[in-house]
């Protein structure tokens, strides 16, 4: 069976620095997969390779068995790969609804139209509002991003990605910087994602990872260090050592 998203022998070098080394990775459809690793392990680089922000130095990236290694970012989005960012990338001066509207309008092909008012595309507005309702953001729809608490901003980050109706969703530290009182909102939202989406989550928060993931991949120094179910990874002495910072010094 072909995996939803797969990398074969992917490496990425920045000069002498190897940010990814020979990564063989599979994300199955409907998977809840977590990618963990110490700081600088190359997690975000790996996401950038999957989304086409960076092109690998060697190796191939496959989507449903089709080679997308050199495909442009915008093209991959059309093929169903969406992501959120570790640091919010929102349309800050616009309202919450507009933020999601832009994403949905792009997906349904409404965005190039110049002579119908945006407000008359009820289909786009309704879909954006529906998304906001599922993320419990509807009451904030009229506020600009600047007037929103950080936890809600993270949800808008997620809403923009979901506006793409992705098949593959890459979440780069979705709960980063969110006060613990608000983090349950993010977790609930992730739990409520459609089951059919293949989700890859990067996070440092082990509670979140072990609650969310059915499968965990550990990345250390750009290479896959271990992979398995949460139980296996939790019991893996090497992984624990890496996280306690004892194993790979010297």
């Amino acid at each position, binding site marked *: 069976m072909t995996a939803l998203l797969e990398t074969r022998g992917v490496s990425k070098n920045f000069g002498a620095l190897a940010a990814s080394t020979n990564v063989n990775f599979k994300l199955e459809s409907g998977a809840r997969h977590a990618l963990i690793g110490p700081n600088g392990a190359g997690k975000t680089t790996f996401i950038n390779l999957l*989304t086409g922000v960076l092109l690998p130095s060697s190796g191939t990236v496959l989507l449903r068995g089709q080679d997308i290694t050199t495909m442009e*970012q*915008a*093209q991959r*989005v*059309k093929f169903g790969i*969406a*992501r959120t*960012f570790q640091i919010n*990338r*929102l*349309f*800050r*001066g*616009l*309202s*919450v*609804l*507009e933020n999601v*509207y*832009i*994403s949905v*309008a*792009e*997906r349904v092909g*409404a*965005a*190039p*139209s*110049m*002579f*119908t*008012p*945006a*407000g*008359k*595309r*009820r289909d*786009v*507005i*309704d879909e954006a*509002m*529906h998304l*906001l309702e599922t993320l419990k953001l*509807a009451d*904030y*729809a*009229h*506020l600009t991003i600047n007037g929103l608490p950080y936890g809600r901003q993270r949800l808008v980050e997620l809403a*923009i990605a979901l*506006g*793409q109706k992705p098949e593959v969703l890459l979440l780069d530290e979705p709960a980063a910087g969110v006060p613990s009182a608000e983090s349950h909102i993010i977790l609930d939202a992730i739990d409520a994602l459609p089951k059919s989406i293949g989700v890859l989550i990067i996070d440092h928060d082990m509670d979140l990872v072990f609650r969310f993931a059915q499968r965990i991949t550990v990345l250390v120094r750009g290479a896959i260090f271990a992979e398995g179910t949460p139980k296996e990874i939790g019991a893996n002495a090497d992984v624990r050592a890496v996280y306690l910072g004892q194993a790979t010094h010297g």
Partner: protein
Amino acid sequence: MSAAAPDHDNLGARAMTQRHKLRWWEPLPWLLALAFYFAFPRHLGFGTELLITVLFAISLDLALGYAGIVTLGHAAFFGAGAYTVGMLAHHGIWNEPISSLLAAAVVAGAIGLASGLVLLRTTGLTLLMLTLCTMALLEEAANLGHDWTGGFDGLTGIVIPPLFGAFEFNPLFPKVQYLYILAVLLVCFVFVRTLVYSPFGESLTGIRENTLRMHAVGAPVRTRLIVCYTISAAIAGIAGGLWAQANAYVNLSTLGLDRAATVLIILVLGGYGRLYGAFVGAVAYMVLAHFLSKLYPTAWQLGLGLMLVIIALFFRGGILGMGDAITGWLRRTRAAPKSSP
């Protein structure tokens, strides 16, 4: 659709579905412009200059205010339009007013498209310098192409035939010009207004607010910017064409940095990315310049400079932003007693 029903009550959804609809104050600028025609028949020369400046500022607002394309060379397109009209008429090729304006739009738009294809690969300071260079190149070309452009002296004595064969352009009493320019401004404004409230306009503001995220939602960012820049250039070309028709001459000032900087100042003064900032800014700038230069003929620009410093430091949204801040504050203070219990 039953699912859509609750949306009508949602503040955000309502703002989105209502925002393109005409607001009660929107006819005001046009009524004022008509009132000016009847009240100050002796100042219609000033009036035509003002209306042309408003149109030029609107074209810049589309590129700078909405799409966030930082440019200091927008007079390149104004000048291209002015020289198109001027050269066609001066060399006896074509001088019917309205079709000349269309030619001005096409030429300026083509220059916008050609330069945009190259320039819009860059951003920020690089883009700023390259737009400046484009304008300087055109200015120098107009200076050197003496046989065609009149060089440093420009082209004088442009003959514009009567509009629709009936209404004569009179340089001393520019009544016809004023109404003609007002009509062209209205048409262009309605076009730009439609554009900025469309999904295309929404995506331009998205590019302005966060270009990287627009890439990540699959938007063809560069194509959008080039389309926007071309449209903006074409409208600036129409403004330039009107200028040539109203003044019956063209010179290098239409292509100069002075003009490009002034229109930028006007837009910042009025408030960019707000459609009506161009109106407010142009009126404020030209009225201020008029009276300050009477009061202090030697140092009138000082007053303008001070005002700009204040705007840049404290009121990023310009005069209109100032208005928004005040009405927002009033609304909050009025709403506060209601929401406290």
